[in-house]
C-alpha cells in the first residue's frame, strides 16, 4: 500500500510569493557559508540533509487530495485542488495500462474538498469510470452545482466519463474493488465523514479530516479511538493549536495536533500524518508545529512510540 499526498492544505489553496522564495534562497546561501559544491547531487545533498525542510522545500499549498495505491483501481480521498495534478499523473499511468476506474471518498462537500473536480481531466474520458462515495445524500447536487454556468463554464452534463454517486453508511462495511471501507460521522458544518481503509493484506489507513472533537463531548471520542484502532497510518486534521480550537476557533470544525496524538496513542496507531494545514501558516510555522507535536508525543507516551510525520504535497508513504 502506498499513500500519496497531492494536496495537504486546508480551506484555501496557497502559493509561495516571490518574497518567500527569495527569503528561502537567501537563507540557504547564508547557511552554505561560502562552501562550494561538487555538482548538482552534492548541492541536493546539502539542501536535503543540512537545511531544515521548511528552509529547503515547502509543504505546498494544494487543498486536500490523498491517493491510496492498493490494487488495480484508484482510491482517492477528497477532490481539493491537489486533484488536478493527480488527474494528469493518472492519465500517464492509464497510458501504461492502469485501470481507468476512479474510486473517490469524500470527507464532505465544502468548496476546498471538491474544487479540483472541474479540472479533473479524466472526467472527459469516455472510457473512465468515476465512483464518488460520500456519506452525504446531497453529494451529486454539490458537484453539479459547482459546474453551473454562474460558477464554471463547463457544465457537469458535458463530462464524458461514467460517473456514479454512491452513498455510504456509518457502521456498515463496504467492499470496493478489494478494499474494505468503513466510515464514521464527524463533527463539522453540514457533517463530515472519516474513512477507514483496509487492504487485502490487512494494512489500515485512516482518513479523518475536517473533524472537530468538541470540548463538551469528550466522552464520545471513544468511538474515534475504536475507529482508529491499530491503524498503520492516521491522516488527521491538525489545523489548529489546542488553545485556538477551544477559544477563538471553536466551532470552526477542525481539530488540533494534541487531540490527534492522544487519539492515536489510545488507538495504538503506528503513524500519525499531520494534515489540513492552516492556510495562513508559513512553512516555518508548519515545521514548528511538527516539531512540537513530536515533543508532545514523547512527553505523553506510555506505550510504543507513535511516528509523527507532517504531510506535504508530494509526500509518499509506503506501508
Amino acid at each position, binding site marked *: 500500500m502506498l499513500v500519496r499526498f497531492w494536496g495537504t492544505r486546508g480551506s484555501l489553496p496557497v502559493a509561495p510569493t516571490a518574497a518567500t522564495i527569495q527569503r528561502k534562497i537567501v537563507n540557504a546561501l547564508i547557511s552554505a557559508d561560502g562552501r562550494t559544491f561538487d555538482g548538482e547531487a552534492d548541492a541536493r545533498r546539502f539542501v536535503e540533509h543540512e537545511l531544515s525542510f521548511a528552509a529547503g522545500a515547502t509543504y505546498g499549498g494544494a487543498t486536500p487530495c490523498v491517493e491510496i495505491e492498493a490494487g488495480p483501481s484508484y482510491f482517492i480521498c477528497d477532490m481539493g485542488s491537489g486533484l488536478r495534478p493527480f488527474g494528469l499523473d493518472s492519465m500517464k499511468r492509464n497510458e501504461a495500462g492502469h485501470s481507468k476506474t476512479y474510486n473517490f471518498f469524500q470527507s464532505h462537500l465544502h468548496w476546498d474538498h471538491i474544487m479540483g473536480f472541474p479540472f479533473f481531466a479524466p472526467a472527459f474520458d469516455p472510457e473512465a469510470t468515476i465512483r464518488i462515495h460520500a456519506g452525504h445524500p446531497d453529494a451529486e447536487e454539490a458537484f453539479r452545482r459547482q459546474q453551473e454556468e454562474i460558477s464554471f463554464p463547463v457544465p457537469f452534463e458535458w463530462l464524458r466519463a461514467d460517473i456514479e454517486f454512491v452513498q455510504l453508511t456509518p457502521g456498515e462495511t463496504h467492499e470496493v474493488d478489494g478494499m474494505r471501507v468503513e466510515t464514521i460521522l464527524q463533527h463539522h458544518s453540514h457533517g463530515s465523514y472519516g474513512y477507514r481503509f483496509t487492504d487485502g493484506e490487512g494494512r489500515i489507513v485512516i482518513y479523518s479530516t475536517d473533524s472537530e472533537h468538541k470540548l463538551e463531548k469528550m466522552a464520545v471520542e471513544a468511538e474515534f479511538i475504536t475507529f482508529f484502532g491499530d491503524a498503520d497510518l492516521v491522516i488527521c486534521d491538525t489545523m489548529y493549536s*489546542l*488553545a485556538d480550537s*477551544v477559544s477563538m476557533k471553536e466551532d470552526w470544525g477542525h481539530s488540533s495536533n494534541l487531540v490527534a496524538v492522544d487519539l492515536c496513542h489510545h488507538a495504538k496507531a503506528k503513524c500519525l500524518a499531520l494534515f489540513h494545514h492552516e492556510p495562513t501558516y508559513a512553512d516555518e510555522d508548519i515545521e514548528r508545529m511538527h516539531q512540537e507535536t513530536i515533543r508532545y508525543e514523547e512527553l505523553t507516551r506510555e506505550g510504543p512510540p507513535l511516528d509523527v510525520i507532517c504531510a506535504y504535497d508530494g509526500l509518499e508513504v509506503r506501508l
Partner: protein
Amino acid sequence: MNYSLDVQDNAVVVRVDGRVDESTWQEFSAGLSEAVRQAGKAGLAHVAIDLSELDYMSSRGLRVLTVAKREADESAISISLVSPNQVMREILAISRYDKLFAVTDSIEAKE
C-alpha cells in the same frame, strides 16, 4: 491521579499529582468543578491549580481546564496555573494554553 483541595492566601488551591489523561480526566473535572463551587461559596475570587507534581496532562486534562474556566467565569472567579514543572511548562507552551491561562510561579504571585 490524585488531587486535593485547600484554602490558602484567599484562593482555593487544587493540588494534583500523577497523570491527567484518558482514564482520569473525568475525576479531575469533578475536582475542578468542586473547587470552583467552594470558591463561590466561600466568597473567594480565585482558584489556583498547582501543577508542580503532575507527571503530565494530555489534551483531555487541558480541555477540562477550559471547562472549569468557563464555569469559573460565570461566577467572576479567576483560575491560574501555579508552579508548572518542566514537563507541564512544555505542554502548556505546545498547546498554547499559556496564552489562555495565567501561569505563575507561586500562589502569592497571583495576588
